[in-house]
């Protein structure tokens, strides 16, 4: 009897345990308390306590923090439609996502904590538990090394596959479809500016580019170019080339129709096999062979494309401005080169990163402009600047902001102090367009592209156009997602409110830029802090006279001294 009681007690305990476990499963299973704790301390502010991407900070962010409940992960080493590997999740937490609000956690969280977070994040989506097989990895074997020939083939594919629709002619994210893109959750999203590899979310190694292309960027408009959706899937490179020729004809002859028909049959058969495989069907040996052959061509072409994309961006983010953050204007004799002159190619650009203005309302939390690049020449009387900056859309003032009703347009402002601070420790004006110390501004707007207005400002909301205008000459152009603005001015002017320039004097310089399509207007803009600009002094031509003269005189003196000593010695003898 006593035994039976023990047994029944045990059963009760087991029953209760069962109940506990089930109740536990209803409230989102926890990988571990530790993972939950780390997540809630470090991740939930943006990604939300329940992983829905709706944390308290999410409202102001674009791109939005990922919603983990759909199992859609952008940066994966796995094929389209597959979940990421644990390593993928760990890597993205460790390295962060450049160009978004996701920071790298390599120093803030220990590796153990990061792994705990990976386990915890996976509990937000049941698919991780339900999937029986590990996700299929994208094969990185047979990589085609970077070479000009490969880049050239990739360039053709970039157009043929339609990359150009969103990423634009030279990859600045300015394609004709760029302004209307939304993500899986309906939020606006911009195609990557491929000329800025340092902002690629998942890294800019050729392998990274290849993986994004084959696997797609889940949840975004970026499609996966895996297998069967690839151009002429199932045809060899030669067959594909021939079919392209036929397809590009306005009208095919009967023989050509027949020829292309055969290609289509071959393609259809290969696509059928790829779909069977994707649906989980076992392939016969012959089918597998057909599939492998088709994929070999796909992967080859994809490496070419990855190499082309790689060619569009510098290896690294440029260093801020030239040499110790100073923009050096180069002296030339005679007339300064106009905007299209090849002379500009000889100069290296000063790279000035800009960030969203978040000090004063309205703020810009989601900037779309990365930087302003500047080159400058001067001569004895004038200085010329060439400013370039990437903007995916040309907005020329024919759109208005929905909430404020204000006119939206692209613009750039270049900021100098009115009076150059004397010495490196002297105070500069406040970088937000001055205050007690005023600033002198050049303000260019896309609605009046041949004009730059001179402003004086004593604060970001306290700028006035100068009474005396017309001292600036301007040229500008927008092409392939990039603005070029050329401005020329006399070194000295009669206006007391203008900055006066002379060689060798270091002048503070800063930038503001507006992307109208991103809602930038007034204080909602991107800005830089102060950098320095100098008219690089010309080494004097007297350097060719005095040093030799001194040398000759020194030598003469030595000879004289020698002669004098010799004579005195001989006299003594």
């Amino acid at each position, binding site marked *: 009897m006593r035994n039976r009681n023990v047994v029944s007690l045990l059963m*009760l305990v087991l*029953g*209760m345990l*069962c109940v506990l476990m089930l109740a536990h499963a*209803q409230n989102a299973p926890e990988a571990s308390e530790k993972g939950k704790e780390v997540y809630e301390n470090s991740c939930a502010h943006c990604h939300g306590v329940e992983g829905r991407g709706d944390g308290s900070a999410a409202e102001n962010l674009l791109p939005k923090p990922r919603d983990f409940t759909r199992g859609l992960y952008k940066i994966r080493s796995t094929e389209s439609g597959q979940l990421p590997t644990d390593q993928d999740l760990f890597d993205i937490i460790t390295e962060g996502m450049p160009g978004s609000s996701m920071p790298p956690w390599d120093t803030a969280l220990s590796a153990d904590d990061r792994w705990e977070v990976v386990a915890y994040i996976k509990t937000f989506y049941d698919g991780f538990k339900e999937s029986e097989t590990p996700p299929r990895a994208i094969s990185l074997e047979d990589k085609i090394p970077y070479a000009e020939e490969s880049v050239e083939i990739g360039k053709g594919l970039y157009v043929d596959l*339609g990359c150009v629709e969103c990423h634009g002619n030279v990859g600045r994210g300015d394609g*004709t479809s760029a302004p209307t893109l939304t993500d899986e959750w309906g939020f606006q999203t911009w195609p990557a500016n491929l000329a800025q590899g340092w902002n690629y979310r998942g890294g800019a190694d050729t392998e990274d580019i290849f993986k994004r292309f084959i696997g797609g960027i889940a949840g975004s408009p970026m*499609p996966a170019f895996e297998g069967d959706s690839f151009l002429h899937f199932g045809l060899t490179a030669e067959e594909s080339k021939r079919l392209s020729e036929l397809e590009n004809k306005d009208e095919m002859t009967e023989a050509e129709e027949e020829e292309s028909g055969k290609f289509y049959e071959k393609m259809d058969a290969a696509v059928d096999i790829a779909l069977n495989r994707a649906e989980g069907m076992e392939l016969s040996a012959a089918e597998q062979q057909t599939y492998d052959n088709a994929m070999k061509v796909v992967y080859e072409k994809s490496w070419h494309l990855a190499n082309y994309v790689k060619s569009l961006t510098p290896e690294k983010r440029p260093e801020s401005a030239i040499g110790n953050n100073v923009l050096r204007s180069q002296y030339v004799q005679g007339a300064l080169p106009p905007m299209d002159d090849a002379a500009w190619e000889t100069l290296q650009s000063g790279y000035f990163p800009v960030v969203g203005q978040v000090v004063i309302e309205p703020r810009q939390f989601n900037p779309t402009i990365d930087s302003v690049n500047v080159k400058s020449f001067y001569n004895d009387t004038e200085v010329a600047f060439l400013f370039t900056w990437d903007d995916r859309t040309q907005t020329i003032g024919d759109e208005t902001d929905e909430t404020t009703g204000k006119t939206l347009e692209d613009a750039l402002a270049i900021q100098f102090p009115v009076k150059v601070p004397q010495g490196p420790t002297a105070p500069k004006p406040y970088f937000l367009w001055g205050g007690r110390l005023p600033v002198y501004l050049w303000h260019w707007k896309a609605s009046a592209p041949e004009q730059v207005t001179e402003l004086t400002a004593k604060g970001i909301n306290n700028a006035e156009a100068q009474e005396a205008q017309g001292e600036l000459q301007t040229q500008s152009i927008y092409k392939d997602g990039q603005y070029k603005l050329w401005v020329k001015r006399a070194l000295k002017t009669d206006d007391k409110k203008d900055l006066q320039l002379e060689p060798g004097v270091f002048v503070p310089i800063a930038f503001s830029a507006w992307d109208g399509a991103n809602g930038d207007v007034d204080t909602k803009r991107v800005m830089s802090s102060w950098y320095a600009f100098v008219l690089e002094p010309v080494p004097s031509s007297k350097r060719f006279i005095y040093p030799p003269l001194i040398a000759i005189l020194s030598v003469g003196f030595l000879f004289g001294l020698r002669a004098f000593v010799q004579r005195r010695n001989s006299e003594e003898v």
Partner: protein
Amino acid sequence: MKTYLLASLTVFLACCYVGNAFAADSDAGEMEMLVFPESYTAGSVSGGGTISGVVTFEGDVPEMKKLEITKDQAVCDATEKYDESVVVGEGNALKNTIVYLIDISKGKDFDKAAKLEIDQKGCQFNPHVQIVPVGVRITMLNNDKVNHNVHIFSSVNTPVNKQQTKNRRRMPLKAVKKAEGPVSVKCDIHGWMSAWIAYVPHPYFAVTNEKGEFTLEDVPAGTYKLGYWHEACGTNSGSPASVTVETGSTATQNFTLKLK
């Protein structure tokens, strides 16, 4: 001992019940979707009947907005295009409404010969609402000579996002495993393109034509809940119509829909 067992069982069941109630709650707030039976057995139907009817629109008929064609004008803007979210014909007939049986568990099989295609001619999806059986491939057509990308916003099944390049005339899509929908179909390249796909587990689904008409044939005799779904007017999932089908005869059920 029995008491212990009973007690633990009661607690166990209570927890399960509460848990399920929570689960049901969390789903209820989602978008208005179709309702599918838990299981469906396909076979031959003898002595079935027909359900037919007309769906009409009530209220001020919204003007069909002309779509703003922002690119590839030569192809996409060759004919004027209109937003098809509410298409009202003569006599207020409402097109593109899905009418279906909610609670059927046994009946006929799918029509295997039916062509399942969505065309993208002139940068507009046609049809605007397409029924796709679970386990069957749908083929996307492109004779436009422009690039499209087929983006299907599934959440139960894996979302689809595939480029259909300008020379790819036919692109079949992987069959899905689970009933879902309707889900939105978009083309990211041409942001105005919009359609809907319903992945369904049984063949008793119809989409109303220009005259607002629908017909469900070979319905086994019995009483069913008849549901509808319309993109802009929502569903009647909360209070579906009850229809009794008799052998060899036609039951009529009309619906009048308003904007949500």
